[in-house]
C-alpha cells in the first residue's frame, strides 16, 4: 500500500515560493490502479516524483509498504555517458536482479538492437523511454509509477506495453498519469483529479473525466 497524507510541495524560484501541491492525500492499495488527471502544470509529474522518492515533500508524509518503481516517463534514471548495457548492469545490481535475465527481457522488449552498446546520450527520447520502460518491467515492481510513457513509441510498442502492463501485470498497483481517456476508463478503478495544486479522488471515472475535461 502507498499512502500520501497532506503532501505539500513548494519550489523556490528566483526568491519566490511556488506551491505546486497543497495538502494532497490519497491511498493506493495492492493491485489498485489510480489514474492521475490534470492539465499540464497541474502537478502530476511532481506528485509521481514524490511518490517515487525522487524528491521530498515540503510538508506531509508518503508511506510505502510495497516495492515502488522509479517514475517511468520520458526522462531520468540513466547515465548518458554509459551504454545501455552498462546502465542495465548498474540497475540490475541496484535492484538485485540477475543481469542475464534483465538483458534478455530488455533486448526483446525495447528492440534497440546494437544501440544497447552505444552511450545512452546518443538515443532519441523515444528510445530512452522504451529502454527505461522495458527495464522497469524486467525488474518487476509491486507498483508502477507511469508518467505518460505508454504514449511513447509506435503503435506496435504501445500495444505491447499495454499487454505487458495491464494484462500480464494485472495484479500490480499502478499510478498512471495519462491523457488517454480510453486507457483510464478500461484499466483504472479510481482517479485523482489535480487542479492548481489541489487534488480530489473520484471513484466514478466518468465523473472524474468530465470534471477534468471541464477544467
Amino acid at each position, binding site marked *: 500500500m502507498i499512502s500520501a497524507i497532506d503532501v505539500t510541495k513548494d519550489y523556490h524560484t528566483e526568491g519566490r515560493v511556488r506551491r505546486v501541491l497543497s495538502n494532497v492525500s490519497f491511498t493506493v492499495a495492492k493491485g489498485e490502479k489510480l489514474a492521475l488527471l490534470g492539465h499540464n502544470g497541474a502537478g502530476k509529474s511532481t506528485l509521481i516524483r514524490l511518490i517515487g522518492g*525522487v524528491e521530498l515533500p515540503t510538508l506531509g508524509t508518503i508511506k510505502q509498504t510495497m516495492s515502488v518503481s522509479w517514475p517511468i516517463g520520458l526522462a531520468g534514471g540513466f*547515465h548518458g555517458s554509459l551504454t545501455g548495457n552498462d546502465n542495465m*548492469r548498474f540497475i540490475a545490481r541496484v535492484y538485485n536482479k540477475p543481469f542475464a535475465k534483465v538483458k534478455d527481457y530488455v533486448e526483446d522488449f525495447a528492440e534497440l538492437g546494437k544501440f544497447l552498446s552505444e552511450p545512452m546520450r546518443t538515443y532519441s527520447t523515444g528510445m530512452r523511454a522504451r529502454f527505461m520502460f522495458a527495464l522497469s518491467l524486467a525488474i518487476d515492481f509491486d507498483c508502477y509509477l507511469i508518467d505518460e510513457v505508454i504514449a511513447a513509441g509506435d503503435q506496435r510498442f504501445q500495444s505491447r506495453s499495454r499487454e505487458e502492463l495491464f494484462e500480464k501485470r494485472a495484479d500490480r498497483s499502478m499510478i498512471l498519469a495519462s491523457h488517454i481517456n480510453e486507457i483510464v476508463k478500461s484499466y483504472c478503478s479510481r482517479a485523482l483529479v489535480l487542479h492548481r495544486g489541489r487534488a480530489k479522488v473520484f471513484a466514478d471515472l466518468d465523473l472524474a473525466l468530465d470534471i477534468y475535461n471541464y477544467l
Partner: protein
Amino acid sequence: MSAFWRGLVIQWRVVGALLIREIYSRFGRESLGFAWIVAEPLVFAIPVLFVWRAVRNPNEHGLSLMPFLWSGYLPLLLFRHLGGRILLFIRSNVPLLYHQRVKILDIFIARALLEIGSNLTALIVSFVVFYAIGAVDVPRDLPMFYLGYFYMIWWSVAVALIIGALCERTDWVQQIWLPYSYLFMMFSGFFFLSDWLPPIIRNIALYQPYTQAYEMIRGGVFGATVTTHSDPAYTTFALAILTLFGLWLMRESRKYVVIE
C-alpha cells in the same frame, strides 16, 4: 532479518553497483586512466627530486629529502583529489537519484572509496619504486605511519563531506576550493615539521587535524630521529566533530537538489 540489516545489505549492494559504474564512467574500459592515477605522483616526484637535489642540500634539517617529499606529497594528493572529485558530485549524479534505493551518501561513499583506493595503490607502487632505487626506506615506526595516514584519510573524507554538501547551496565553495587546495600545501605540514616552527606558531598549527596527521606520518617515516608533536586524542575529537557536521550537511543537502 531485521529492517536495519536489510537496509544495510541494500546499501552495500548499491555502493558496490555505484563503485563499478564509477570505474567504468571515469576510466572507461580500455583507457589508461587508472594507471595514470598511480603514475602521477611518480611523474611529479622524480623531477622534483632531481631539481631539489641540484639546488638544495639533500639533507635539510638533517632529514633526507626523498622520504620527506614522498611522505608529504601522497597525503596531499589524496586530499586534493578527493575534494576535487566531490565538487558538484550530487548535481552530476542526479539521474541516479531517480532510483529510490540510491542515496546521496551512497554516491559519496562510492566516490570516496575509489579515490582512497587509488591513492593507497599509488602509495604502495611509489614506495616500491623508490625503495627499489634506494630513495626511501621502510618507515621506522610503521604503526605510527599507518595511524597518521588513517587520520589523513579521515580528514580528507570529512572535508569532502562538507564541501560536497555545501557546493549544492552556493557557488562560493567551488571558487574557494581551488586556492584553498593550493594554500593547503603551504600550511599543512607538507614542507615542515612542527618542531621547526617557533613555539607560538607551532601551537596554532597543531590545532589543524591535518598537521597532526602529517606529524604522525613523519614520526612514522623517520622514527626517533625527529621530534614530532602529535595528539591522537585531540585529532580524533576534532575529526569526529567535522564528520558529524559533514554528515548533517549531507543529509540536509537532499532538500537543495533539483531534479530536472
